[in-house]
C-alpha cells in the first residue's frame, strides 16, 4: 500500500560551502524555514545561483546543512536519503547499459523485493508513463523527454511519499514540458505524494503548484510564498485562467528585482 504524502520541515536551514584554504566560504543558503504539507505540490523558484538545487539536495539528505535542521515526516535527516523520498534530477540519470524495463526495476531489485512484485510495479509504471512499448529499448534509443520519464518511473515504482524534482523538464522543449507537467499532475493526484519541484520556469511553477516559494539572490531565503488556490483536478489548460497571469506577474515582479541583484553581485565579484 502506498504511503500517504509526507511532510517536510526545515528550521533555520543554512548551507555554507567551504572555500579554498585561506579564502572565504560561499554562503549559499539561508537561514530559512520551510513547511511543505502532506500531499502538497510545492514549487521553488528563484534567480540563478540562489541555492535552489542546494536546498533540494539538503531536503533530500544528499547534502548536510551547515546549520539548522530538516525533518521528513517528523524524523530528522541524518546525512542520508531517508526511506520514502524519491529524487529526480535535471540531468539524464538513466543508466545507458540497462534497457527501460531494467532501469525502472533497478531500485526495486536493490531493495530485494519479490520478482512478482517488481514485475507488477514496473509494468504499472511503464504503462502509467506511456513507456510500455519501449520496455526493451535502451536510453540511447529514446528522446530526452522519454529518458526523463524513465527516471520519473524509476522513482515512482519505489512509491515515495515525497518526490523531490530538480528541474526535471529543463532540457525539454516547451510543448513537451507542458505535457510532462500534465503527467506530473496526474502522478501527484493518483499517488497522493507530496511533490517539491525546483524550476526556472515561472509558468510551470504557476501551472503545477499549490504554493510557490520565491527565493532571494544568494544566500537563498524565501522572500514570498504564493498560494495559487487551484483545484486539485487541473491540467495545463489552467494557463488560460485569468488568475494565472496575475500569479505569474507577481512572481516575476519580485524575481526580476532579485535576478538583477544576483547579476549585479555576480558582476561585482568578477
Amino acid at each position: 500500500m502506498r504511503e500517504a504524502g509526507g511532510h517536510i520541515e526545515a528550521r533555520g536551514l543554512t548551507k555554507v560551502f567551504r572555500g579554498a584554504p585561506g579564502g572565504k566560504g560561499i554562503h549559499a543558503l539561508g537561514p530559512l524555514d520551510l513547511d511543505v504539507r502532506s500531499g502538497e505540490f510545492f514549487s521553488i523558484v528563484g534567480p540563478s545561483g540562489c541555492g535552489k538545487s542546494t536546498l533540494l539536495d539538503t531536503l533530500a539528505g544528499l547534502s548536510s546543512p551547515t546549520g539548522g535542521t530538516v525533518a521528513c515526516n517528523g524524523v530528522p535527516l541524518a546525512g542520508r536519503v531517508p526511506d520514502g523520498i524519491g529524487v529526480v534530477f535535471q540531468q539524464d540519470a538513466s543508466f545507458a547499459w540497462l534497457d527501460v524495463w531494467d532501469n525502472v526495476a533497478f531500485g526495486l531489485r536493490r531493495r530485494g523485493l519479490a520478482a512478482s512484485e517488481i514485475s507488477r510495479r514496473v509494468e504499472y509504471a511503464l504503462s502509467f508513463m506511456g513507456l510500455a512499448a519501449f520496455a526493451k529499448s535502451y536510453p540511447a534509443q529514446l528522446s530526452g523527454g522519454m529518458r526523463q520519464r524513465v527516471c520519473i518511473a524509476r522513482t515512482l515504482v519505489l512509491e515515495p511519499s515525497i518526490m523531490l524534482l530538480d528541474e526535471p523538464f529543463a532540457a525539454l522543449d516547451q510543448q513537451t514540458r507542458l505535457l510532462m507537467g500534465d503527467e506530473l499532475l496526474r502522478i501527484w493526484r493518483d499517488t497522493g505524494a507530496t511533490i517539491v519541484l525546483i524550476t526556472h520556469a515561472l509558468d510551470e511553477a504557476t501551472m503545477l503548484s499549490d504554493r510557490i516559494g520565491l527565493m532571494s539572490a544568494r544566500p537563498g531565503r524565501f522572500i514570498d510564498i504564493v498560494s495559487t488556490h487551484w483545484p486539485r483536478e487541473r491540467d495545463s489548460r489552467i494557463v488560460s485562467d485569468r488568475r494565472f497571469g496575475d500569479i505569474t506577474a507577481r512572481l516575476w515582479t519580485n524575481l526580476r528585482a532579485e535576478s538583477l541583484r544576483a547579476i549585479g553581485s555576480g558582476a561585482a565579484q568578477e
Partner: protein
Amino acid sequence: MRASRLDGVLVLAGFLLVWQGLYMLVGGDVVPSPSSAIVRAAALLRSANFWKDAASTGQAFVLACAIGIAGGACIGFVLGSSRFATEVADPILGTIYSIPKITLYPIILLVFGLTLSAKVAFGVIHGIFPVIIATMAALRNVSPVHRRTARALRLSWGATIATVLAPAALPEVFTGIRIGVAVTLLGTLLAELFASSSGVGFALIRAMEIHNVVDIFALVLLIFLFAAAINGLLHILERKLRRHA
C-alpha cells in the same frame, strides 16, 4: 559494412604489393616474396615444433593478460575511487608508463631467471599500465548524476560500485584492456626475443641467428595475424559494450 570490408581488402592488397615490390627491389636474401613467406607460414602451422613454441608464448601471454587486466582494473578502481589518490597517482603512473620497459628486463631476469615467470612478469609490466590509467579515467568520467542517483536510491558502497560505477565505466575500461592486451603481447614476445629458451619470439631470434629470412617473415606474418585477430575480437566486444552508450 561493405565499404569497410572493401577497405580491408584494399589495405591487404596494397600491403602485399609493397611487399612484392620490396622483394623485387632488394632481392630474396633480404626480403622473401610474399608467396614464399605465406607457404612457409602454412608449413609452420602444420609443424609440431611451431605449436610447441606457440603454446609456450600463449601460456605466458594468457597469464600475463589475466594478471595485467585483473590487477590493473583493481588498482585503477582503488585509485580512481578517490580524487586525491587519482591526482597523486596520475603523474606517477604516466612517468612509469613512459619508461622503456626493456631497461627493466635484466632485473626481471635476475629475479625470475630464464623461466615462464620472467616472460609473464615482462608481459604484465607492459600491459598493466594502460588498464590502470583507463580505469582511473573511466571512474573519473562517470557522470556525477549517476553517483547522486546511487545515493538517492540509498545504495551501499559495494552496490554502488557493482551496479553503477563498474557498468558505467566498463566501456572505457575495455579500451584500456584492448590496448593492454596488445602491449602485453609485445612484452611477452620481447621477453622471448631477448632471453628465453622457448616461444615464438625465441623461434624468431633463432631464425635471425641463422639468417633464415623466409622463416623470419613467416613468423612475423603469423604473429601479425594473431595480433590482428585478437585486436579485431576485442574491437567487436568493445563495440558491443558501447552500443548503448
